[in-house]
């Protein structure tokens, strides 16, 4: 902890001030929150700048070449284009932080309202996918680590390397074709709200959830296996083994606990991946989530909505990373004072 002295001036000063405020761990936690807010600011600015990528005048792109001057003026106003650039930026950032993302050009509804409708669908998908990831990943990873080098282990390592290379939508298309179209076991497309019918909600999410989980559970299994096997070489495990405990015994009682913290980080990253991947999987399975909202908006050149979708997903990822960071600081204070 004293080692943090000769660091870069700014961080060191902030760190020192924060330590005075709340002691080591609280200070670290505060710093994490601070950096997440900074990251968020960068993302909002990037999302704002996306509109600069539109070739030509965005208002003309939206309304078409033959649009009347009044319509153009109205759209310019809606997109904030009637203001100087810097003011547009400040305006967008300020409004974003106060949960106002503008109005949809297509639907004339507040973007936040549209996102609020789509968000539960995407979150449901993410939750189901993460459930599958956790179960499949932990079971496979543990099985592989129980007997490193066995045929099961080698198959899993090889299989997960291949799984990582298969784009999720390919798996989604195949799963959909076999289990929904051919066998008719599960619904092909569509979404039922949890409040309406929890069973249908779940059955509708099994295939898309498995699709998203295929990739992340491979990653989770690979990481868990690696961590568990690494732990195996450590002194305390050797002592336990020398005392006559079997490897499975040590694995479940001791090695797991050590693998928990890195696992958490991996899970956090995977959840971010799942949120990103959901965009396309929603399209394949006809789920009216953020992804579908985004695709519809892109095809209709509804720029405020496109911005909103990108922003919300990024915010989710940032919030998740922060959460994982904070839990990690709590679990393992010594790693995180740097």
């Amino acid at each position: 902890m004293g080692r943090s002295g000769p660091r870069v001036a700014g961080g060191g000063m902030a760190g020192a001030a924060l330590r005075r405020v709340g002691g080591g761990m609280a200070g670290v936690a505060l710093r994490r929150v601070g950096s997440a807010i900074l990251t968020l600011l960068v993302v909002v600015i990037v999302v704002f700048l996306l509109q600069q990528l539109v070739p030509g005048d965005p208002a003309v792109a939206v309304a078409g070449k033959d649009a009347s001057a009044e319509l153009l003026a109205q759209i310019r106003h809606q997109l904030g284009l009637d203001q100087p650039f810097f003011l547009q930026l400040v305006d967008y950032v300020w409004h974003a932080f106060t949960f106002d993302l503008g109005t949809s050009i297509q639907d004339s509804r507040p973007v936040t309202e549209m996102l609020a409708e789509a968000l539960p669908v995407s979150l449901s998908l993410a939750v189901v996918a993460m459930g599958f990831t956790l179960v499949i990943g932990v079971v496979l990873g543990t099985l592989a680590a129980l007997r490193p080098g066995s045929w099961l282990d080698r198959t899993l390592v090889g299989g997960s390397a291949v799984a990582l290379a298969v784009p999720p939508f390919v798996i989604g298309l195949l799963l959909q074709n076999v289990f929904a179209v051919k066998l008719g076991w599960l619904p092909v497309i569509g979404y039922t709200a949890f409040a309406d019918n929890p069973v249908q909600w779940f059955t509708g999410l099994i295939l898309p959830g498995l699709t998203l989980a295929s990739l992340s559970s491979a990653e989770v299994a690979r990481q868990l296996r690696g961590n568990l096997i690494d732990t195996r070489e450590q002194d305390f495990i050797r002592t336990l083994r020398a005392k006559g405990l079997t490897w499975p015994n040590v694995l479940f009682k001791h090695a797991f606990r050590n693998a928990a913290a890195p696992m958490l980080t991996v899970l956090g990253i995977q959840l971010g991946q799942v949120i990103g991947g959901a965009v396309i999987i929603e399209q394949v399975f006809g789920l009216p989530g953020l992804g579908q909202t985004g695709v519809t908006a892109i095809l209709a050149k509804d720029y405020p909505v496109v911005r909103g979708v990108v922003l919300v997903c990024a915010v989710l990822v940032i919030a998740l990373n922060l959460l994982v960071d904070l839990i990690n600081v709590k679990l393992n204070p010594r790693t995180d004072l740097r």
Partner: protein
Amino acid sequence: MTADTVTEPAPPAVSRTPPPPLRRRLARLRHSRVVRRLLTDRPALVALVLLALISLVAVFHSLLEPHDPLRQELSHINAGPGSEHLLGTDYLGRDVLSRLIEGTAPTLWTAVLGTLIGMIGIPLGLLGGYLRGVVDGVLGQVSDGLLSIPPLLFAFGIIGFMGRSSLNTALAVGIVLIPRFYRVAQTAARSVAEELYMEAARASGCGPGRLLVRHVVPNALGPLLVQTSQAIGVVVSVQAGLSVLGLGTPPPTPTWGGMLSDAFDNNADQIFPMLPSAVLIVVLILCFFTLGDSIRDAYGRAERGKK
């Protein structure tokens, strides 16, 4: 000290003539060790051979196509594999095999172009890692922000604003890759910057430009090659993903992702039409990922979970 640095420019000019052979030979030796390791790595060899084959197909596509990839035979739509059309026909009666061959070049080209654009992150990362301080702080914060937007979604947003075209696909995935290359280059440069030989080189009057090119870049080469190889794989995946969303390369040009999307949109109850393009996409990604892993091993970095 000042006098030294002033007189310094002259000696290198003189000594430049003799060293290159030796230095180049040394570089070649080091290079060859990595290459030798790669050539004894069976998965890497398989990947290299497959990539070479795919590139050859891309170059000589017009010689290999059994049919015109754009000719529609409306009496023969969605035909299964047969002697006339080895992989069948699509929803417009176009020969699938010919379209796959024709689509090789655009698929590869977008992947490579996208990765090249992403490499803009490398010099930025080297500078950030070497200079540290404010430059690194600002660039690092920006790249953190960009990294928190899921890659496919980011590409999707960029296409949303720029409009769809194959060039825009490459641009979008390229922009998405910039912060990823930045991270790798920055980490590599930072770890090298603290080495004793850097201190020595600096003390003997080596300027920052020369330091970067002569000492930082060669040492960062391994991780960067690994990243490049994996990045191309990611680009192929994202590009195909955009196609499935209907945001990829617009219709007349066949790409593998576009063909997969076509098969899904127009013939969803059949599994076979999706397979050829899906398999090729997976094989291409797998080749680049395998190559990345093998390069990492060849550079002697211990890979976790291997043996």
